[in-house]
């Protein structure tokens, strides 16, 4: 399988995104599998942001730091990417970046700026570069011109045509370069790409929520979770849903609780610092048995940490959020398809069991996009609610622990929800017996949840000596390495559900070495396994610099541990 990594790097506001968008669209429409992930600074202008675009003949969703082609839009990019540059890297940049590149690197001057000026507009530079990069992969020229024309359609016929011409000039320039420097980036096209759609993690969560019947969204802006709210608010009119930016995260979580209480399907999107403020609300949902779905897009903490970078450091926060004991579900989607399907499922589970469900994504997953199979759209939402008669009691002490949930106005009865300990009607009590009975009733639901827990995915050598334990967005990268080094008797178990935890004791005992792979400082998931399964995972590969675990990082760490 052929695969190449193109990295575009520039300052915020320089139009790198335009080039990225045109390039990925043309490549996808030409039948290549595409994957793009970005790393960016917490600033509106300046700095250096980079996007890594993977072009491959088969779906390849792991993260590799390798750079085959680097396109710097500003000085400093080459140095920013220095550690990722190898002797096989080709840098395509303006002549004035040559010094920064140094002598040991293949530097090919591209006079895009001059070309743009000659074509009459400095702004054509992004279109020229898009055309140039498209030509390297022999992408379809007609698709390129059509896409560029459509993109600039609303800017007038002239500008649209001029941009299209500029793209073609870029394409020609690329062909010239390939010939002159004897470059070839041969990637086979795959007809099945046409059937796929392109989603980023945030869109997958948003659309998954809509598919789960989400009709009320409450949030307070916080990177990297805001994208989900923005996606949803842009669909609000058409989907006939309510999306409201509240005054703080405390209000946001309580509003969603209020929405569920009133019969809606509330959804909260936040990041670690915001979620910290929602702990009290979590507890209320737990006690009052009100469903709740929270998307928690992780970024490095503590406190403000690194606002635009990635981490898996909020597992403990999500696991223990809220005072007192109550059941909950924690999902951590492994990829974009799961970000959609698990978000959909979260709404049904929250409703059915009247518990909080937390979907842990991270900056990497939210901001990454690639082409995926069209996800399933549901046929119907099951509202797990009952029509109340005059004898209705909200918190009936039932065998399963699930007390049928009413909604105000539905039927002739009324309901009392309560954050204080309560009797079956929902009225406050301090009776010892009832206090225990109610807590037991609520916690009984955990027994059912345990039975329904998603099993982790096993990949790699069936006769493994070394077993990697991973969770969330690292799935494809770990899988890639495990498959590459299958002969080293390597395997992995990957979790998309963090809690309740599946019992994997048998897998663990069969391994000579178990290694936890996580993006936090302490190995929070390994600690959970020890707590739940009494199995101590001593060896840990932990990354907590705000950057996603890559194939290269994992190879290096496994080599150092003597596994590879």
């Amino acid at each position, binding site marked *: 399988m052929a695969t190449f990594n193109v990295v575009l790097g520039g300052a915020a506001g320089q139009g790198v995104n335009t080039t990225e968008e045109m390039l*990925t*669209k043309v490549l996808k429409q030409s039948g290549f599998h595409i994957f793009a992930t970005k790393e960016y600074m917490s600033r509106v202008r300046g700095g250096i942001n980079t996007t890594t675009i993977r072009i491959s003949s088969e779906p390849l969703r792991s993260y590799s730091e390798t750079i085959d082609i680097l396109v710097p839009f500003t000085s400093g990019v080459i140095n920013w990417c220095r550690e990722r540059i190898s002797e096989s890297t080709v840098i395509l940049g303006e002549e004035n970046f040559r010094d920064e590149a140094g002598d040991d690197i293949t530097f090919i001057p591209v006079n895009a700026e001059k070309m743009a000026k000659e074509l009459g507009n400095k702004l054509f530079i992004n279109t020229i570069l898009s055309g140039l990069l498209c030509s390297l992969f022999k992408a379809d020229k007609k698709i390129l011109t059509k896409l560029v024309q459509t993109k600039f359609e609303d800017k007038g016929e002239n500008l649209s045509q001029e941009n299209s011409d500029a793209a073609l000039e870029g394409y020609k320039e690329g062909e010239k370069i390939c010939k002159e420097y004897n470059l070839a980036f041969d990637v086979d096209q795959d007809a099945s790409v046409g059937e*796929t*759609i*392109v*989603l980023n993690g945030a869109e997958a969560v948003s*659309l998954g929520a*809509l*598919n789960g*019947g989400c*009709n*009320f969204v409450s949030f307070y802006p916080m990177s990297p979770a805001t994208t989900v709210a923005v996606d949803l608010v842009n669909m609000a*009119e*058409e*989907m006939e*849903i*309510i999306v*409201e930016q*509240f*005054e*703080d995260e*405390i*209000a946001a979580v*309580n*509003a*969603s*609780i*209020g*929405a569920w*209480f*009133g*019969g*809606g399907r509330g959804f909260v999107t936040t990041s670690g610092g915001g979620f910290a403020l929602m702990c009290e*609300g979590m507890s*209320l949902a737990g006690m*009052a048995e009100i469903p709740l779905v929270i998307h928690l897009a992780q970024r490095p903490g503590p406190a403000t940490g690194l606002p635009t970078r990635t981490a898996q450091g909020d597992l403990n926060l999500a696991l223990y959020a809220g005072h007192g004991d109550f059941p909950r579900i924690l999902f951590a989607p492994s990829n974009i398809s799961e970000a959609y399907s698990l978000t959909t499922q979260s709404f049904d589970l929250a409703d059915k069991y009247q518990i909080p469900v937390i979907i842990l994504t991270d900056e990497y997953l939210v901001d990454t996009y690639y082409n995926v199979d069209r*996800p399933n*759209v*549901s*046929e119907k*939402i099951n*509202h797990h*609610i009952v029509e109340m008669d005059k004898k209705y009691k909200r918190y009936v002490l039932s065998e399963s622990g699930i007390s049928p949930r009413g*909604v*105000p*106005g*539905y039927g002739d*009865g*009324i*309901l*009392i*929800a309560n*954050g*204080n300990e309560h*009797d079956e*009607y*929902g*009225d*406050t*009590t301090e009776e010892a017996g009832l206090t225990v009975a109610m807590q037991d009733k609520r916690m009984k639901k955990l027994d059912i949840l345990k039975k329904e827990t998603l099993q982790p995915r096993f990949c790699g050598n069936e006769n493994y000596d070394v077993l990697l334990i991973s969770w969330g967005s690292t799935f494809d990268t770990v899988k890639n390495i495990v498959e590459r080094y299958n002969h080293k008797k390597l395997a992995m178990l990957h979790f998309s559900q963090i809690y309740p935890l599946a019992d994997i004791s048998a897998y663990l005992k069969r391994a000579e070495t178990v290694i936890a792979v996580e993006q936090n400082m302490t190995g929070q998931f390994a600690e959970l396994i020890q707590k739940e399964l009494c199995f101590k995972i001593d060896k840990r590969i932990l990354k907590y610099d705000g950057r996603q675990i890559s194939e290269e990082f994992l190879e290096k760490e496994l080599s150092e541990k003597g596994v590879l």
Partner: protein
Amino acid sequence: MAKQAKLFDSKRPKSKDISWCPGCGNFGIRNELMDVLEEMQYTPKDIAVISGIGQAGKIPHYLNANGFHTLHGRSLPIATATKAVNPSLEVIAVGGDGDMFAEGGNHLLHAIKRNPNITVIVHNNQVYGLTKGQGSPTSMTGMKTTTQPWGVYDEPMNSIAMLISQGCSFVARAFVGHKDETKEIIKNAILHKGFSYVEIFQPCVTFNKINTYMWYKNNTYFLHEHDVTDKEQAMIKAFEKDPYPLGIFYINKEKPCFDNHLPPYKTNNTPLYKRQPNFDKIREKLNYRSF
């Protein structure tokens, strides 16, 4: 002769044991609210009372109506959302001075701005009752409390002035001792489309020895010949405190109401629990992402 049963009086087992102190002003507010709702011909299923924490917050347990006894200070976002998803419900948020002005101050400020079509009733007894006698944001200067043993040094919060200044669309104050007038104010508040704020002076007979029934009687008067649409005049009245004016200070019927801007109700008013998502639209959205 046995008293005629009130429609909104709860018959649930725990409702009989009301935990307010004998003589507490909360009893009066509860009675007035029950009477108003019945007189307005509501039935219990039409009403949702969302309360915070404190003695006032216990009120859902003593009413025959939908209720949610939530967290300290958080009743307003919850009430806002409940109304938003279930628009035919009449949503009443209830809390005390600690609930609304201290713990929930930010929510109150933003509820005014958002202007959801709900009514909020603040039981203001100028002291913390449930936690036993600490000063509240509205405790009077000099009042000695459990936690301000030398006396409260600062000035009480002027909620009425704050609400008017921020353009709250309905601002009123009552004293629980005036039964008919209080009922009339609550009725108007419920009828008002937008965020209706009713502060009710009520004595805490156990912990507040200053602001007694007699004190409120002697230190309040009813606004008369007051133009409720005149914001400046309302603001002047809001600063009066010797005696405190009662009645409706300010009404703004023009203020945009949160509920009028909600996408689900552009075409019909069906509550959300009776709806299904538009799956065809989701399919369309997914198709759009074919790049």
